[in-house]
């Protein structure tokens, strides 16, 4: 049941317990308990809203930053990752295999705000060897949802 609940709420976190129980053919109490357990175990880490900021009047710049670092003895990459993720403007931090070490995503108010964060805060951290900043120009698809076009039902309205 866990897997089924997660598959549904990953796409629609607003669905209520009653409706989940109906469509999964389960008891409400069982769904509620399962959700609670998953929250406690940290399987469910939050319920977010997907927003296409482009369509609002709020200015927002998202950047992906490749960071190369020197791992520290005994700590590996964890210490420096922690230093980075503590900044509230940092959205996500991933340890990556391949040409660089950390991938940091960042939301800023403007290009300038992001670049000054990178030059003043990020690249001056001890252990950071280099950074490469990529600004996102357009989001086509995010979290499995296509942002650039709306679903349209093109089927014939009545078919046998």
């Amino acid at each position, binding site marked *: 049941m866990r897997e089924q609940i997660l*598959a*549904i709420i990953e796409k629609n976190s607003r669905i209520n317990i009653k409706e989940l129980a*109906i*469509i*999964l053919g389960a008891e409400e109490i069982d769904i509620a308990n399962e959700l609670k357990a998953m929250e406690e175990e940290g399987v469910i880490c939050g319920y977010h809203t997907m927003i296409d900021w482009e369509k609002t009047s709020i200015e927002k710049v998202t950047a992906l930053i490749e960071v190369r670092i020197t791992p520290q003895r005994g700590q590996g990459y964890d210490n420096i990752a922690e230093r980075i993720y503590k900044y509230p403007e940092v959205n996500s931090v991933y340890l990556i295999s391949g040409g660089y070490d950390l991938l940091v995503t960042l939301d800023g108010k403007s290009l300038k705000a992001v670049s000054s964060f990178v030059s003043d805060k990020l690249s001056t951290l001890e252990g950071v060897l280099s950074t490469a900043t990529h600004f996102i120009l357009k989001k086509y698809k995010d979290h499995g949802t296509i942002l650039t076009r709306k679903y349209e039902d093109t*089927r014939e*309205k*009545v*078919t*046998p």
Partner: protein
Amino acid sequence: MRNPLSETIVTIKPSGIRKFFDLVSEMEDAISLGVGEPDFDTPWHIRDEGIYSLEKGRTFYTSNAGLKELKIEIVKYIERFQGVSYDADHEVIVTVGGSEAIDIALRAMVDPGDEVLIPQPSYVSYEPCAVLAGAKPVIIELKEENEFRLTAKELREAITDKTKILILPFPNNPTGAIMERKDLEAIAEIIREKDLFVISDEIYAELTYKDKHVSIVSLPGMQERTVLINGFSKAYAMTGWRLGYACAPREIMEQMLKIHQFAIMCAPTTSQYAAVEALRNGDGDVAMMRESYNQRRRFLMHAFKEMGLTCFEPYGAFYVFPCIKEFGMTSDEFANRLLQEEKVAVVPGTAFGDCGEGFLRISYAYSIDNLKIALEKINAFITRLRKEQK
């Protein structure tokens, strides 16, 4: 001028669904629950194979019976699904949708005067295809009290010494009914005893919500008496690709192949390449879609219960078949008023046979959000009807 038309074709009524389709098309903002095809797009990896085949210039006819590699995949699929083996070279044909398979199977097997048993409510093409093949269709009216399954008693009562074929349309469009192993065993016994043949249309085989679908070909002595029909439309959301197939004993298949060869040549090549990919790597997509349909099915059943609308629980396809007899209207009247007053389109049960009277086919090949809106309107409509009745 002489009458240019064939007497036979003129006697065939146009599909009952057509009339309703015209009404709905005129209404621009109608919400439809009347569609008989999946709402999912064909999974991308399958479309991608179709595109790739075009890029590589695979734009020629295939052999009449279909691409060898597709026939092999079909045989493997039936083996893992039903545990039954077919000979890919002589017992499989790839057709233009399940519809063509129904047509050529009937034409290959009946002579004038032969009787074909057709359980109804069921898909619209069995009866006309039987007539066009020169046979006499004999309707078996299925009953709600049996969950619209075919019973041994109903079958026995319909058999005469002219009966040759039983059409077995399960999982069923429009009722959503299924036949489980025990139901099929009772039917198979009579088929063997009376020396009949079966055309088993299992196009919805992947969409069952109880146990896995059981095909009648998996029962003892039935493979040699059955034309098994399936296809890609419903399981893989590939309706527009027009691709189905049939498996049958060599003797029958040879004759079906002749009709197919002269009337069709071969099924669309692009679709056949895409279908190979569907069978090889599409199990996950089918499971995902099945789960999604099942959630909607539960949602609808729950909503009907709350509305107090009687409906047996269907375990197959993507239709529910609620009963509207309490409102004292025909299915046609009900569907028309629902369309005019609430702009919701559902298909009257009578489009699938006279015994569909008093029922509606409601499709759940729609998102839950869509279903919610439509259900609110249906609820408002029947609440009003109940008040009128008082």
